[in-house]
Structures are given as C-alpha cells and as structure tokens.
C-alpha cells in the first residue's frame, strides 16, 4: 500500500491534501499562524516577504474564480510569484496527461502547486509524483476533500465560539457530493466537537456516513434544535431536479435555512456557508444577510488561513 504522501518521514506536513489524519495540535497551530496573518490584512501594506522568490502555480482543472482568487491574493500577500493555469482550456484537451502537465510546470520552477480537480484523489496523485522540494495544496478534489475550506471554517468557529468542546454543530445539505462537508466533519471531530450532526434527505447522505462520527438527521427541525453552529452546504444545479431530489422548491421547504428554522437553534448560533450561495434554495436571503451569518468574515479569514498554510508548507 502506498504511504501517506501528506507527511514527511518525521511526521511534518509536506503537503496539505486532506484534514483527515492531521492532529488537533497541528490544526490549532495552523489556526494560530492564521491569526497573525489576519492583522497583515488589516494594514495598509498587506504584504510580508515570506515567500519572496517562490513560484506558486494555481493548477485549476475545475473552473473556480473565487477559490482561485483567494489563493492568488494569499500568495501575493506572501510576496510569492503566482501563475494561474486554467488547465481545462488548454493542454488537457490536447491530450496531455496530468503527469506530463505537472512535470512541465515543475520544470518551469514551480515551488508549490495549488490544485483543484474533478477527481477524488487527484491531489494525492500529484503529491506522490512531484519532486521532493515541491509542495501541493489541495484546493478541492472531486468529492473527497477541501482542507483549506475546512480550516477556515474552523478558524471562523474559533473566532466566534472559542471552545470547540462545548459545541453542537450541524452540517446541512448535500453531504454525499460535498468535499467541503467531508473536510468540515473531519476537522470538527478531530477538534473535539462533542456533537456533529448532518441534516439531509437520505438520497444526499452517503452510505455509512455515521462512520465519520456524525449523528444523522433527516428532519431539519429536529436537527437544528439547540445547535451552536449551522454550516450550510451548496446544492449543485445537477442535483436539483431528477434523480436525487425532485425540485429546488421542495428542497427549500424542507431543508432550506429560513429565519423560522434558525430560531430552533441557539439564539447566538452562527450561520456559515462556503459560497457561492443559492439564495432561496439552501438559504433564505434574510438569513444570509442577517446578523447571525458570518459568511463574509469566512471569506476574509480564508485569505489568512491560506497564507498560513502556504507559509507553513514552504518553510517545512
């Protein structure tokens, strides 16, 4: 069996591929490092020279403007040189293999790859093949993992709620197809959250999801009761009509977060969403724009967390 490519022989982080397997201590140290980077973002000159001279390649096989942009901003704030590759348009269509693409870019002096790919395991695959000095950050692979999203979500919770060990957290939506959900669940359970709930219709819950350490709720009313954090997941268009769900309307009625349903949670519960939001499908505008939503801070924190991840890897 292949060894875990995420860690070095001594257990240090060589790549960030998935939250699964990271210790609580390591996660907290990433969040602590991110704290310092938040203040950088509040200065006039939002740059530090940490990664000056390093080349970071954003290798996005799946189109994404927002994630790619935050990684780009984070890298530039570290004074790194950033190259954006929207690979879906170019060499892949000419039949170049994934490995050839990676090898060619490595030959151009890449120090770090930030990779998003439609296939689960793609980041692991690339990490197994790059030269020892190159680091890989998984920006989302298929349904498997989106570790920086999981980390920034934990950073947000820590900012607003402080102590993970006293929380009830609900993850709502298409868990089956969501890499964000998997990363969030791994992070929450690792950080000691005593009750992690998933709320979804059965068609959107993968087989054996309890084995991830979650309590399953099909009834959103029951699932949101006394919850401290509500983490909404985006419902993709493909799921909305046909074989997983009959319609967006029925989904919104039973699984969408409205102000009324939010009242079932604790009065100081926070509402999170990885974005982009489908208003009126998984979340009502009044909630998304309301006082309990921390969706915009998530975005700001996302830059600091990614700066932390990239500088920790580059300095390893």
């Amino acid at each position, binding site marked *: *069996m*292949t*060894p*875990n*490519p995420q860690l070095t022989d001594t257990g240090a982080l060589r790549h960030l591929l998935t939250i*699964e397997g990271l210790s609580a201590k390591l996660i907290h140290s990433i969040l602590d490092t991110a704290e310092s980077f938040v203040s950088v973002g509040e200065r006039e000159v939002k740059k530090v020279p940490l990664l000056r001279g390093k080349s970071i390649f954003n290798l996005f096989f799946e189109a994404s403007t927002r994630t790619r942009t935050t990684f780009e901003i984070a890298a530039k704030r570290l004074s790194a040189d950033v190259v954006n590759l929207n690979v879906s348009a170019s060499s892949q269509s000419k039949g170049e*293999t*994934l*490995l050839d693409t990676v090898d060619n870019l490595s030959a151009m002096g890449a120090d770090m790859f930030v990779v998003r*790919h439609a*296939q*689960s*395991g*793609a980041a*692991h*695959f690339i990490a*197994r093949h790059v030269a020892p000095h190159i680091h890989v950050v998984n920006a989302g*692979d*298929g*349904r*498997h*993992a989106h570790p920086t999203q999981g980390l920034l979500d934990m950073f947000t919770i820590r900012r607003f709620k402080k102590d993970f060990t006293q929380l009830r957290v609900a993850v709502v939506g298409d868990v089956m197809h969501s*890499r964000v959900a*998997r990363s969030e669940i791994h992070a929450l359970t690792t950080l000691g959250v005593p009750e992690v709930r998933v709320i979804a219709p059965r068609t959107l819950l*993968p*087989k*054996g*999801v309890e*084995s*991830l350490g979650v309590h399953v709720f099909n009834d959103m009313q029951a699932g949101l009761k006394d919850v401290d954090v509500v983490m909404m997941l985006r419902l993709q268009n493909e799921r909305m009509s046909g074989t997983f769900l009959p319609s967006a309307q029925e989904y919104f009625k039973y699984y969408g977060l409205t102000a009324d349903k939010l009242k079932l949670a604790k009065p100081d519960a926070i509402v999170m969403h990885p974005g982009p939001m489908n208003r009126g499908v998984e979340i009502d505008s009044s909630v998304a724009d309301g006082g309990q939503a921390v969706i915009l801070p998530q975005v700001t924190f996302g830059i600091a967390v990614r700066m932390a991840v990239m500088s920790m890897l580059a300095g390893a």
Partner: protein
Amino acid sequence: MSMKIHIKNGRLIDPKNKIDRVADLYIAAGKVVSIGKAPEAFHANREIDASNLIVCPGLIDLAARLREPGFEYRATLESEMDAAVAGGVTCLVCPPDTDPVLDEPGLVEMLKHRAKSLNQAHVYPLGALTQGLAGKVLTEMAELHDAGCIGFSHADAPLIDTTLLMRAMEYAATFGFTVWLRPQDFFLAQDGVAHDGEVATRLGLAAIPACAETIALSTILFLMRETGARVHICRLSSRDGVELIRQAKAEGLPVTCDISINHAHLCDRDIGYFDANANLMPPLRDQRDRDALRAALADGAIDALCSDHTPVDEDAKQVPFAEAETGATGLELLLPLTLKWATEQKVPLLDALAKITSEPARILGLNNGHLGLGQTADVCIFDPAAPWRVEARALKSQGKNTPFLGYEMLGKVRYTLMAGHGVYEG
C-alpha cells in the same frame, strides 16, 4: 520425441486423485507412466531433483487476458504466455473482450493457432455471447464452439436486455454450452469505481452497492431455472452473492463460480491513499465480504480461484483513481496467493491446490488438471517456501499493475512442463 523424465523426491500433490505424499513421477512420451516406482527398464533422459519441492498438475487459470488481438500495446501473447508458464499455469481460459471481439470463428482459430505455435500453455478462448459484445444479437455459438471456444461469455460488457440474455442462455443450452457471466446490474454500477461503503464515503469515490451484484445474480439464477442453461458465475465479490450461490447449488442448479485472487485477499481498505492498482471490477468490497468469499472457497460454495489476469499499461494507471483503467496483472501471483489463502484459512494443500487444478478442470469439462496414469504430463514443480517480492522486474508479464506491489510472497515455480517438455525453469 520419446523423452523419458524422472522427477524425484518431490512431494506429489494431485487433488483429483487424492494423492499427497513424497513420490517420484515418471513421464514418457509426454504422458505420466508411473508414480512412486520406476517402470521396467526406464532410463531417464532427464532427471529433475524435486527435493523440498511440490509436484502438482499444471495450474488451470479460468481467466487470463492475453490482450491479443488488438491490445498489443498493453501486452502480447509472447509476454503473457511467458508469464503463464512462469506462474506454473499450463492451461488458461481467455475472455472474448479482445479487439476485435472473439465473435467470429476465424478470429478464434487465429488465436488458437498463434497460441499453439508458442508451444506453451493451452489456451481455451471463451466466445462472445453476443455480436461485438454489444448485447443485441446472438453469435454463431455452434460455429464458434467448433472453432475452439470452450464456453460463451459477456466479459465485462453490459447485457441489459433481459430477453436477449434469456434467449442467449436458451440457445447455449440447446447445444449444452456453458454461459460465463459476471453479475452486475448496469444501472446500479454506472460510473461507480469502488464498493458502496465506509471507504468510498470517506474517499469521496462514486460507489457500486453490493446489490448491483445480487440483483443481477438473482436475474441470472431465475433465467437458469427458465432455460436450463449451465452457467459459470465469474468473479463473485459479495457475501450476499455467496448466499445466493449456496441456495442455488442446494437446489441443484447447474451453476459454478469463481473468485479472483484479488478478492480472496483484499478489501476496500486496500485502496489506501487512492492506489489506482486497487481499481478493479468488481470492486473490492468490505472485510466481511472478503472473509465470506474466503470461507466459501474453503467449503466449496465457491468452486475455483482464478487470476483474472488483466495487464494494463503504466500510463493507464498513472492517473487519478477513478480515471484509471481497471484490472490487475495476476498470472504469476495465482500460485503464491492460493498458498497464502490456504495457510491463512488453514486449508490443507491438497484441497487448496484443487481450486486451481481439478476444480477448474471440472468446470471446463476437461480431463486435465490431474496426474493420473496415462495423463498428459502438464506439471508444475514449485518451492512453497521460496520468498520473493512483488515488483516490476520480478514479473514477466508486461502488466506490472497489481495491488500486491511491494508484498512479500511465498511460493515460486521452479519448473513447468507441458507434455513432459520443459517450458519454464526458474
């Protein structure tokens, strides 16, 4: 050529004839002439000292893809036949999913002719059950049988039209041909690459539930009751599937089945960190399924072990898991993995070796896979204790793709004889 061969001091294990003792084997004119005592005036041209070695019938592999015709970039007949005899295999069955598909007598004749000219293992092709394996039109099964097809298979191609499946089974039953089918519901398995369970959930892989196998298997068994066809079920993977087979056999249905060496040992956890070598069809299921398969092989509900040899070129595995071509190389692992199963499952060697000699012979309806007097001397002589590491350079097959890469194996073939003639020496 009247070669006289004396294999001495070996532990002779012949499952069909229930022999397991140290005994010399005497071969003349390509046939077994005596066991234990030298025949009158026997002067051996060649002596093989099999001390501390096991002498058994040449292995029979019920599924080995040779990749010819059409897929020569993955492997050639030469390289795979070399691999076969290096693995002690003297007789193998190849599925019809070549390019073009084996649905024309001419193609079958050519393949048989090519294989025969190499003078290594016997090749028994399975003919395609439908034209082009497209699942729409029956093939000329009688003609194909005359050309040398030992049975008819649909390989891994979907056969969605139940009426056509029933007709194909009825037609095969007309002539007494065996239909070889791998049970998998096309719709439930669509896009899936891993077993629907905790591992696929964790790894975010599109999944195939076990019921994809049991639903298809139930359909096949009911059609057997309708048509009276004889069916060999290929590559069972689930514990529920095992139970269905058990019931069918208890009922007296003419069904046999096999599992691959991969499924006898591995489960979905062996995908590890997305190892594309563990991308197999049917998928590796969970530990309970694997344990049920191993136990069923021991108690006879499952009849035989095969390699399911599928050489894949390196590029096709050097991609993210779900994009990889499925399949694993296996001709050279059939013997050591059978031995490993026997040791772990505490099955005596006599019974274990039956799974790759006399039982496959029975399934094929051939009088081989044993070393009775007068029998053609297809022999495998191996060292059960010889350790070796599974790595690319240790394999003769062009396919280096196996989830067992890096594993330490016990069991190495020292000599393989075809009709007394040495075809491999290790």
